[in-house]
């Protein structure tokens, strides 16, 4: 994972953008539709040439070209996209879940009932299908881009956290210190923010951190279907979607799937391993069990 952090930070040096003001546009080399194979057999050597400025990206072509977009460039800058997308989606989902779950649990009764039934209805759709629909409906208004897909994934992503935090708060709000705070007349928002949420939030945060990988996957899937990042944007899923035109000849043009695919796999694997480690630390009883 540190490896990916390093790539994201060092992107301007690893893959110098053509236009410094639009680094997320993938560099184009020529105008051919055909995939172009990597230059030479050792991509590391070519990458080194790019870093040391012995060759431009188009001369080096470490991972080849697809529709004249440079795959290496897209992977490097796509790392930033992946971090951005994963962290923002997860962060906002946890936040919304927190809001709805804690309000429902704290005030209880009909507020809780209404909020939980709404949650049920959001849960009545398969996540990806619902996100596809919302992304398609939003596209005429917002256009194709990161924002549309991210909104779609956020609208349908918060329910799990809302339920989780609700359960934890229900247990905590019966504690004596909460009664004490109520007895001295502290306002609701203060009790909730200062006394309840800090004590109930950790399981939700842990689950959230474990889900970052899966949000990156879902976003990549939307991009792959053509509902995420626009064409030519440095995004892994969007790059792989080019491969759909070359399926019968993929054995010649393996690099258009293998390199971006590896990037996604390793990135998500990294997050999942971190999530597992997190859980082991917090719940040693489960160590090595799941």
């Amino acid at each position, binding site marked *: 994972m540190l490896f990916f952090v390093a790539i994201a930070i060092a992107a301007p040096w690893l893959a110098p953008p053509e236009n410094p003001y639009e680094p997320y546009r993938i560099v184009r080399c020529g105008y051919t539709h055909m995939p172009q194979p990597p230059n030479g057999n050792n991509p590391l050597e070519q990458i080194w040439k790019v870093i040391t400025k012995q060759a431009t990206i188009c001369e080096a072509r470490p991972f080849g070209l697809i529709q004249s977009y440079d795959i290496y460039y897209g992977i490097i800058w796509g790392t930033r996209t992946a971090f951005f997308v994963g962290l923002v989606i997860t962060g906002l989902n946890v936040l919304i879940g927190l809001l709805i779950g804690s309000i429902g649990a704290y005030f209880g009764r009909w507020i809780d009932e209404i909020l939980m039934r709404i949650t049920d*209805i959001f849960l*009545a759709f398969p996540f990806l299908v619902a996100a*596809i629909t919302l992304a*398609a409906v939003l596209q005429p208004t917002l256009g194709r881009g990161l924002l549309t897909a991210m909104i779609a994934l956020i609208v349908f992503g918060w329910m799990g956290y809302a339920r989780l935090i609700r359960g934890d708060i229900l247990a905590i709000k019966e504690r004596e210190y909460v009664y004490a705070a109520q007895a001295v007349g502290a306002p609701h928002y203060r009790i909730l923010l200062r006394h309840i949420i800090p004590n109930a939030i950790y399981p939700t945060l842990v689950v959230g951190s474990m889900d970052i990988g899966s949000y990156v996957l879902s976003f*990549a899937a939307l991009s792959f279907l053509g509902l995420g990042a626009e064409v030519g944007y440095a995004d892994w899923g969007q790059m*792989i979607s080019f491969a759909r035109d070359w*399926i019968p000849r993929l054995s010649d043009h393996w690099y258009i799937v293998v390199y971006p695919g590896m990037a996604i796999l390793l990135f998500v694997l990294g997050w999942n391993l971190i999530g597992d480690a997190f859980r082991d630390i917090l719940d040693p009883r489960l160590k090595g069990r799941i």
Partner: protein
Amino acid sequence: MLAYIIRRLLLLPILLLGVTVFVFAIFSLLSPEMRASLYLSDVPKSPDAMERIIHKYGLDQPIHIQYWQWLNQIIRGDLGWSRTAQRPVSEALLYYLPATLELSLWAMLPVILIGIWLGILSAVHQNKLIDHTLRVFALVGWSLPTFVFGLLLLMYFYAKLQWFPPGQISDWVTREVINGSFIRYTQLYTIDALLNGRLDVFWDSLRHLFLPVITLSYVQWALLLRVTRSSMLETLRQEYIMTARAKGLKESVVINKHATRNAMIPVATMGGLLLIGLLNGVVITETIFNYPGIGRWAADAAIRLDILSVVGFTLFNGVLLVVGNLIVDLLYAFIDPRVRLD
């Protein structure tokens, strides 16, 4: 048990109504003009055509009346016109459903049996080589995007080896269907082939189904393996297992008769999740393998911004999932009597 079933059944219409309200809410994010233009199948010939359509579908009415009109339409089965399929949305759903059904049926059985079997295997051999291998297998399955896995399979087994082609069926079968020498009784090619007594068609259909089924299954195997493994390990620590072993029962009897049955209870709750995985998975899988089911239709429609088709597809999925979850919950209550009490 009966009270539980009745309670759950009473909730069903409420949830279904919620589903329609929700789909309509998403749909009405579009302006009335945009929605009206969806109902148009041609370029309007007169300047007031748009106005008339807006009026006809009540798009200039207050929102709750619009919803009521829309609900009446969908109950009558009128979901609009699907530009992608060039037929009404409800017909398109029925037209593409058999292919997806066939794919899902072939995927479901191996998913459940193999996934559970791998999980038990992993738990019984805890921390041995086979366990570590299977856990890596599950972790990779959990981290690898479906579309990358599908493309890799196609790269090797289709582009390189030419073993398993994409699509649903070979051209020569399609020709036989058209000239009438192959009759499609059920619309499911594998079953039709057997009914026609045509093993060559059966084999051809299997060749097309193999890769999509594997693609669809891998994530699910990963999920089931993890859950079954942890549940099985939990069960194997129980005292009655020790008792069974102390009685001198054979290990295979202890595992199969005593442990597995109880370990399956938490696994049964996975039913709903598996269904969600399947519904999500068919969209991606069918798109990659160019398999003419509802998933590919919906994905095509989404790219073309054929919103009516997408909305119809989502509605269908929502209803399917609500009903599916109900069935899973009822089955679960049947397996584990403790559930019925709360």
